C-alpha cells in the first residue's frame, strides 16, 4: 500500500549539545536532513562525535539547544509523551532489567500506548503481536525468556517490540553492537526489509560503515567539523568517508566502498 513517500522526520538548523552551569557544550554543526517513509538511514561517525546526542534529541529525551525537529509536520517538543509514543519507537543498547520476560510478553509491551488502564490486549493488539512474531520469524523463540536468548535473538525481539508499537519512525541506537558479522548483516537486512515493505522510516547509529554503504538508502556522516547527508554513492564520490578517520592507520577505498588498514 505504498502511496508515494512523504517526510516523517525533518530537522531545521538543529544545534545539539548539553547545557550546564559552566556554559554550553555544543556538538558539531549539523546539516538539515529529512527522513521519508520507507527509508533506512544510518548515522555514522567516530566515537564521541555526538551520534548518541543526536539520537537522544530526535527521540525527545533531551532538547536541542536551538532549531526545530518536525515529526510528521508537527514540532517534536509540542507533542506529549503519550502522543509521541504513537509516532516514535526506540531500540536502545541498554539491557532489559526483567530477564524473565518472554519474547511474546516483551513484544506485547510495545502495545502499551494503545491498551486500556490496566493493559488488556484487544483482539487488534493480539493480531499485531502475532503478525510481528510471524514477520520476524520469532515463532520458535516466542516463549523463551530474555535471559535464555542469544544477543542476536534478543535484538530481533527488541526490534519486534518497536514494530508492535506501530510507529512511523523507529530509532535504534547501535543495534548491531555485540553481534558477529553474520548477525550484523542479518539485522541490517531485516531493518532494510522492514523499512521498504512496511514504509516505516528507520534511523539508526552504527559503526558498520561497510554494511551501511551497501544496505542503507541514505547516510548521515558526522564529523568533528562538519556533516554530510545523502545516498551512499554520492557520499563516496564526495569523499565524505575519506576524512572520517586519521589516514595514518586506515584509508577508505573508493573503488570497493570499504576501509583498508595500512600495514
Amino acid at each position, binding site marked *: 500500500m505504498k502511496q508515494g513517500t512523504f517526510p516523517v522526520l525533518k530537522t531545521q538548523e538543529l544545534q545539539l549539545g548539553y547545557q550546564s552551569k559552566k556554559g554550553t557544550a555544543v556538538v558539531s554543526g549539523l546539516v538539515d536532513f529529512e527522513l521519508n517513509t520507507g527509508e533506512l538511514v544510518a548515522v555514522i561517525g567516530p566515537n564521541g562525535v555526538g551520534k548518541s546526542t543526536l539520537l537522544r534529541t530526535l*527521540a525527545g*529525551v533531551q532538547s536541542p539547544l536551538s532549531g526545530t525537529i518536525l515529526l510528521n509536520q508537527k514540532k517534536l517538543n509540542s507533542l*506529549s*509523551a*503519550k*502522543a*509521541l*509514543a*504513537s509516532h*516514535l*519507537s*526506540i531500540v*536502545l543498547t*541498554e539491557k*532489559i*532489567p*526483567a*530477564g*524473565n*520476560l518472554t519474547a511474546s*510478553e*516483551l513484544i506485547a*509491551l*510495545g502495545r*502499551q*500506548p494503545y*491498551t486500556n*488502564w*490496566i*493493559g488488556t490486549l484487544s483482539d487488534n493488539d493480539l493480531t499485531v503481536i502475532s503478525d510481528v512474531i510471524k514477520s520476524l520469524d520469532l515463532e520458535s523463540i516466542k516463549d523463551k525468556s530474555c*535471559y535464555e536468548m542469544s544477543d542476536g535473538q534478543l535484538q530481533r525481539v527488541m526490534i519486534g517490540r518497536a514494530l508492535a*508499537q506501530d510507529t512511523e519512525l523507529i530509532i535504534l541506537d547501535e543495534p548491531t553492537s555485540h553481534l558477529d558479522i553474520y548477525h550484523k548483516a542479518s539485522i541490517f537486512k531485516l531493518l532494510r526489509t522492514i523499512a521498504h515493505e512496511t514504509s516505516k522510516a528507520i534511523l539508526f547509529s552504527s559503526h558498520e560503515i561497510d554494511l551501511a554503504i551497501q544496505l542503507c538508502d541514505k547516510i548521515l556522516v558526522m564529523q568533528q567539523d562538519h556533516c554530510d547527508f545523502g545516498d551512499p554513492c554520492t557520499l563516496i564520490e564526495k569523499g565524505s568517508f575519506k576524512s572520517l578517520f586519521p589516514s595514518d592507520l586506515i584509508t577508505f577505498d573508493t573503488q570497493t566502498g570499504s576501509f583498508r588498514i595500512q600495514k
Partner: protein
Amino acid sequence: MLFLGALTLNVSLGSVHIPFENILSILSGGATDNPTQEYIITQYRLPKALTAILVGAALSLSGLIMQTFFRNPLAGPFVLGISSGASLGVALLLLGGSVIGGISAVTSGASLAIAASTGSFLVLLSIMVVATRVRDTMALLIIGLMFGSITSATVSVLSYFARMESLQQYIFWSFGSMGDLSWEELRIFIIIISIGIIMSIIAIKSLNTLLLGENYAKSLGMNVTRIRYALIFITSILAGSVTAFAGPIAFIGLAVPHLTRQVFRTPNHRILVPAVLLCGAILMLICDTLAQLPGYAFSLPVNAITSIVGAPVVIWLLVRKKRMMF
C-alpha cells in the same frame, strides 16, 4: 484454601486452649456457653489474625513494587528508609525521653504508633524532596540505605545513654507484634492498606512498563516522574502504616515476591499483585502461628520467626534456581 487453613490454624492457637468446635461456632456467629472464649476469639485472636493478614499483604505488595521500581531483586519495602524512620521516631520517644529524663511516662501503644508514623512520614518527606533533585533511581536507593544507617547510628547513641527499662521497651517494640490492635485501630489500618492496594492496582500497567526500564517506559508514553512519586507514596503508606501498627517486620517484603514469582512464573503484575497479596497474608499467618506454638503461655517475637522462615527461603531459591530474577 491454603489461606483459609492458615487463618483457622492461626485463630485456633494461643495461650488459652479453646476447643476447635467452639471456635467454629464463635466464628460462624453462633451462640456459645462460654463468654470468656468468645471474648478471647473476637477481641484478641481475630484482630490479631486480621493484623497478620494486613501486615503480610501490605509488606509483600510494597516489596514487589520496590523490586520492580528499583530493578533490584534485593529491594524490599524498607529500602527507602521507612522502617528506619519509624524506628527513629520510637527510639526518640522511648530512649530520648529517658535520656532527657522525666518524659518516659507517656509510652502507651498509641503514642508508639504516633511516634513511628511521624518518623516514617518525615523520612518519606525527605525522600520525596530528594526525588525531585535526583533523576537517577539508583541514587535514590542508595540515599534510602544511607537514611537507614543514620538512623541505626542515632539509635545506638541513644541506647548507650538510655535507661534499662526504656531500652527493653524499645527492643520489645522492634521485635514486632500483631497482637496489640483494637478494632478501632484495625479500622484505620484497613482503610490505609486499602488505599495502598487500590493505588497499586491502578499502577499495574505502569509497573509492567517499568519492566523494560525507565527509558523504554518513557518512550511508551509513560509519565515517569509522576509514576515515581506515586510508587514512593504507595510503598510509604503501606510499609509505614505496618511499621506504625505492628513494628518493623523483617523479611516478608523481600521474600514473598520471590516466592510468588517461583510459583506463578510470570513477571506480569496483573497476576503478581493479587498473588503477592495472598501469599504474603498466608506466610504472615503461618509465621504468627509459629510464634504462638512453642511456649503456650507466651509467644516468640514474630520478627525472629519471619527472618528464620524468610532467610532460608531466599537462600533456597538462589541455590536451587541459581538466579533471583524478576
